[in-house]
């Protein structure tokens, strides 16, 4: 009698699966999108009045000085030439040098990505650690006190602007209570506790809207299943307790949707880092981008926006692929 185990069965299933085909196709279409992004940004940035040379030299500069610096920086070449030049370097991984600081962007990027990555990662962790238990408890007793309160708070929470929240957090926890620092970053290598202490407020400011959204989504999905799906009735008829039904059946199915949403949220979160990193003075790529924009350092802006776009495309792709892999109806196709 053959003993078939599920493990070897999964691997061939994934390799030949629609999930991989989907991933391949999406990667292919990502390339023109990224090209489009870089072209668009280039056009926009060229419309910005006042070049980096003007910024560097200050308002006292004479037109001759500006012209000379622009010549040095190569800013007076025609746009198409500049774009092609940039592109040919970018595809080889050379994102150019910052016009302002002369540093190669590719060198600066890893450290900054680490900071932003940590911020975004912490935000997700905080939001899920709070949202999942809260939504489960709310869905366990729908329309009772906990459910109603948490829904009202989450709904209201989604109406708060993240910069407003960040400032209020600083006001309360940094200024009034002095529990956390208002600005500043401590690298992980220096001190783990220092790092977490400094990241606490910014991570929470980013996590809060996510938290509200996930709580609402999860609670609504769970309740829909518990009240509407026939397999819930079957599970109850087996003699399973309410928590077992909620966790093993309803939450299991909801988690697929949740993972997908988390993936899709990544791009919105990256955008939010621009503001949050500025408020809290964190040396991440969001702050780098903002500095680049304010100093008209178009090379930096071009590079960072490209990085943003790549992250967005990859995150969306991963979300779609993960969903295809997790949902057995897609993974194993039809009989």
């Amino acid at each position, binding site marked *: 009698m053959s003993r078939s185990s599920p493990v070897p069965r999964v691997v061939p299933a994934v390799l030949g699966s629609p999930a991989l085909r989907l991933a391949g196709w999406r990667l292919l279409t990502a390339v023109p999108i990224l090209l489009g992004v870089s072209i668009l940004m280039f056009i926009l940035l060229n419309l910005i009045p006042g070049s980096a040379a003007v910024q560097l030299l200050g308002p006292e500069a004479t037109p001759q000085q500006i012209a000379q610096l622009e010549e040095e920086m190569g800013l007076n070449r025609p746009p198409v030439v500049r774009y092609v030049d940039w592109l040919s370097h970018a595809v080889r991984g050379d994102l150019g040098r910052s016009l302002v600081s002369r540093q190669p962007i590719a060198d600066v990027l890893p450290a900054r990505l680490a900071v932003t990555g940590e911020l975004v990662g912490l935000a997700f962790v905080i939001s899920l650690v709070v949202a999942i238990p809260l939504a489960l408890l709310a869905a366990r007793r729908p329309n009772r006190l906990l459910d109603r309160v948490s829904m009202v708070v989450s709904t209201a929470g989604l109406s708060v602007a993240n910069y407003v929240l960040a400032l209020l957090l600083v006001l309360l926890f940094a200024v009034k209570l002095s529990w956390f620092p208002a600005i500043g970053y401590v690298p992980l290598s220096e001190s783990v506790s220092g790092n977490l202490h400094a990241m606490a407020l910014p991570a929470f400011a980013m996590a809060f809207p996510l938290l509200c959204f996930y709580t609402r989504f999860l609670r609504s999905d769970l309740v829909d299943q518990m009240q509407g799906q*026939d397999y819930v009735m079957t599970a109850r*008829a087996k003699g*399973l307790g309410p928590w077992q039904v909620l966790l093993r059946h309803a939450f299991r199915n909801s988690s697929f949707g949740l993972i997908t949403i988390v993936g899709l949220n990544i791009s919105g979160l990256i955008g939010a880092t621009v503001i949050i990193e500025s408020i809290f003075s964190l040396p991440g790529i969001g702050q780098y981008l903002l500095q680049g924009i304010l100093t008209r350092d178009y090379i930096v802006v071009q590079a960072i926006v490209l990085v943003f776009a790549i992250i967005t495309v990859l995150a969306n792709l991963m979300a779609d692929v993960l969903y295809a892999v997790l949902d057995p109806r897609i993974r194993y196709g039809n009989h």
Partner: protein
Amino acid sequence: MSEAVLKVENLRVRFDRGGRRVQAVNGLTYQLRAGRTLAIIGESGSGKTVSSRALMGLLPATATVTGSARLDGVELVGMPEDEMRHHRGADIAMVFQDPTRSLNPTMRVGTQITEAIRAHSPVEPAAAKRRALELLSLVRIADPHRRFHEYPHQLSGGMRQRVMIAIALSSDPKVLIADEATTALDVTTQAQIMELLAELRSRLGTAIILISHDLGLAASYADDVIVMYAGRAVEYAPTRILFAQMRMPYTRALLDAIPRLERASHTRLPVTPGQPPDLIALPPGCTFEPRCARAQPECRDSRPPFVEHEIGHWWACWYPCKDGEPL
């Protein structure tokens, strides 16, 4: 004659929702013996499904159940939920109508069976798996090892229903309720499932309650039949007696409405006019009176009692059909 494994007496279920009160089951009485099959036949809204869910304690909080339902002497009505959970699935189990939606699409078939097993006895996963494979063979699923690891969408409708039956039988229940279990299946598969149930009944001695709107199904597979209308039992008898000496005009109407090959083609189907009554505002008299061809004035004013008029044959009618009399 074996002792009744399930004794239901004057079962009533009412729903209170949004200020409205609906009496879904209005006094149901029957007995079920081990190894026998009882068919509960009725239209939608007759209370057949609600009464069975009441036995399992699967009704929402808006429902109030009164009366008595004794399973092997244990009173199910009013049993607290945590106690009920021990009986649910273990002593009394249910198979639902739509196997496609009744199985969790993201969980393997095997896991859904072992989950049922382990809900009632603390066995090792390996032992649970062995038992699950046994059950899959019991319900005549070919290649149980392969099916164990598959997902519901990889099985056919008939196979899914067999899995549901396997789940229901996993803890050897005394009573199995098949709630429209074959309605969603095609005719051939329907017959196969019904044959399987009959076979399992004689092998395991499980008592079966068949809930259906199909009187023909009752005729083929049930030992006893109860006919429900508007929340009440209106006729109850062993199958042979019921079909030989049908008393209730409603039951006659149900029977006549079944399309038959013997009739000439293009004959009008004798359909009973009207609708079942609104369960919120039940009339004082017989609930079937507005649609009954035999109705007399007193039928509208007073409700006929549900009484054992002949041995083993109960009905509720002032003017029941006599033997051989047309409707």
